[in-house]
């Protein structure tokens, strides 16, 4: 898959609720980060999400447990990926992919809109690529939010 195809496949898996397969797109040392506000430094500032692969696994486990009430019923989402810009990364074969993301999310008779700039770091894995780092800088991350327990 090309870099763009990885992003589109990730969006399709999330919209389909195929979270186990989504997890497989990531490397074992992956970081999934949604900063809060300006989001300068996760070592010193609280984030909405700052997950290592273990925590990502836990999120997926929870969503499938049948007792995650904030996702019962589950959100219906539509991820739209655009403005994709692929640049070489730091390591051998590594790619840094910038994109813009819009997610429409429907739950409990209300539609919410989330949008932001996304950065993926993709690394070679056999014949393909996997995601080592995903950062979602939401434009609304500094306002009071409700339930953001679906996967962005």
């Amino acid at each position, binding site marked *: 898959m090309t870099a763009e195809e990885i992003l589109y496949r990730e969006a399709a898996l999330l919209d389909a609720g195929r979270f186990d397969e989504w997890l497989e797109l990531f490397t074992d040392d992956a970081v999934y980060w*949604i900063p*809060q*506000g300006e989001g300068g430094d*996760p*070592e*010193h*500032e*609280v*984030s*909405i*999400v*700052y997950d290592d692969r*273990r*925590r990502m696994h*836990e*999120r997926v*486990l*929870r969503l499938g*447990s*049948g*007792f*995650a*009430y*904030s996702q*019962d019923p589950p959100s219906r989402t539509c991820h739209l990926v655009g403005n994709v810009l692929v640049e070489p990364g730091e390591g051998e074969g590594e790619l840094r992919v910038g994109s813009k993301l819009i997610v429409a999310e429907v739950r*409990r008779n209300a539609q919410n809109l989330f949008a932001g700039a996304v950065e993926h770091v993709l690394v070679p894995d056999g014949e393909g690529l996997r995601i080592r780092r995903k950062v979602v800088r939401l434009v609304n991350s*500094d*306002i*009071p*939010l*409700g*339930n*953001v*327990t679906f996967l962005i």
Partner: protein
Amino acid sequence: MTTTTGTPSPADLITDDWRLHGSIYTSPAIFAAEQEALFHGPWLYVAHESELREDGDYKTTYAGTQPVIVVRGADDGEIRVLLNRCRHRGSAVCHDERGNANYFRCPYHGWTYKNSGELRGITYDDAYPELDRDQLGLVRLPRVESFAGFVFASFAAAGPSLEEYLGNAGRYLRIVSEQGPDGIRLSAGSHKLAYRGNWKLQVENTIDNYHFGFVHRSFLDVLADRIGEAPPIMQNVLKNPEWRTIDLGNGHSVHEFGDPETGNNQGQLGDLPFNLIIFPNLCFVGAQLRHILPKAADATEVRLYPILHEGDSDADNAAILRAHEGFYGPAGMGGADDIEVAFDRVGDGLKAVEEDWLVMSRGLHREQPGENGTVVGRASDEVPQRAFYRQWRRLMAEEAA
């Protein structure tokens, strides 16, 4: 239910056998009365001193529903709490959440105030030949006091000192302030939550141990996956005699996980050895300070400030943040389930008003008197909720009288 003036009578809303009337959570008239009785006289938390280290540092927040600026004087270092409202035509004079300023200049017509509140400049002021500028500073809350680094303010010019008001709860606030080797700081920003529901639902839920095994079953499953065995939280809630709830008086309450000087919370949700409620809207849970901001009878905002440790390493403090994010915040694996079940679904249910009474008597029969006038119950008993509503009823009745 109502007096001749149309105001609900608080004495009729909570029965002696601890049934609560649903309108406590839904009535705009009761919400308005609360703003007078609970948020316009008693001490209100506004800031932690670590947010205002330098002269001129400020933050904006709310005293009840009223927007305020909490600011350390640029000239004298004194912390003041000012209403964030220009005296001319009402525009808020400061819109940043935090910063440092010597002056606040209203963007509407350029009136300028010193950060201590005095009106310093009126633009083109020849049009006001007789205006008394000394009377037109930003309105200042008459009393501001600190306890163990926590800054409170009151709209009442007279009344009990902050230390008297905190009473038995002061000891616990001091323990919070000593979490780090050199104290604590609120420097990590805050999670901001919003929900459509009454602010008191968040207070009650913060110190409700009865719900944990139900609402947070998925999180208990996550913990079990993480540590390879069933976590001990529910066994402790149901069986551990050292886990206890205490009515501290004045509406304050605590849930101790053992001795508060040495107890712990299994390190899963945060390091604080207790959940603490400071009446009416300040809470401590996990590793966070939780400031609940009432907006309307059915609208609330909540700010969660992770408590970092002064004197501990960056890595240790980052671990506090990661543990906090796992459960709390808009994407947390626990807190969002509280919003769903304890607030949203309660809101759905409370619309069925044909039989409008709720039951808050859990453990009433086994309450025991403790030291200094406290009341002690078991971990899952509704002692803290009754502590809150004893004070609520007292203040609301005084206001109505």
